[in-house]
């Protein structure tokens, strides 16, 4: 179950398929909040052509699993899925998906927002952006 809920992968994912899996967990689910991060063509005043994500295999998945477990413990929610893509990503493509299913929407919103903040804070994933001026490893993000 867990392995399917936490994934770091090069392939794209289907938000609908993942949402359906969350819905199938429990008929008590009344609110599902998704966060989908996609590749923007512009960052810090700089045009971007494409991007590449590197990660620490094993450690990244471990941190994502911890985030999921903390969210399930700290918020009144039923299930969480976290998927992050790595490798080459084109502009407009999906990067990250976090889905939280809960009985009530407020818990789902809070948990989903916390998960993506925490993902950015503790997960060993790195982004390299290719711009018309060259290649840059991103060092911070808003």
């Amino acid at each position, binding site marked *: 179950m867990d392995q399917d809920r936490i994934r770091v992968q090069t392939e794209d994912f289907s938000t609908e398929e993942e949402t359906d899996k969350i819905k199938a967990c429990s008929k008590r689910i009344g609110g599902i909040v998704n966060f989908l*991060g996609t590749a923007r063509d512009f960052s810090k005043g700089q045009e971007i052509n494409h991007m590449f*994500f*590197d*990660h*620490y295999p*094993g*450690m*990244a998945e*471990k941190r994502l699993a911890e985030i999921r477990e903390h969210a399930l413990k700290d918020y009144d929610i039923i299930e969480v899925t976290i998927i*992050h893509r790595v490798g080459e990503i084109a502009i407009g493509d999906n*990067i*990250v998906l976090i889905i939280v299913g809960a009985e009530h929407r407020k818990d789902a919103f809070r948990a989903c927002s916390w998960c*993506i903040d925490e*993902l*950015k*804070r*503790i*997960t*060993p*994933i*790195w*982004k*390299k952006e290719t711009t018309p001026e060259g290649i840059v*490893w*991103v*060092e*911070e*993000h808003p």
Partner: protein
Amino acid sequence: MVKVRFFAVLKSLVGKEEVSLDVEEGTTLAQLLEKLKMDLPPLDDILQKGGVLISVNQEVVDREAPIQDGDEIAFLPPFAGG
């Protein structure tokens, strides 16, 4: 022997993805870093600049952490996932 790994921008700054070296029993991470800086001079600048975390067996640790034979040490520049 311990394995030392470099990720993302550090790979190109250090010029290596991975090195292996012997450690004496009772070595701390701080002592290992001194040894590594001699082999890999760019590391000195990188560590002085700050923002780089170091993990031992995939857990972030501080400089007092003991290092044992078989450990995997990794240099992690600022994360940028999401």
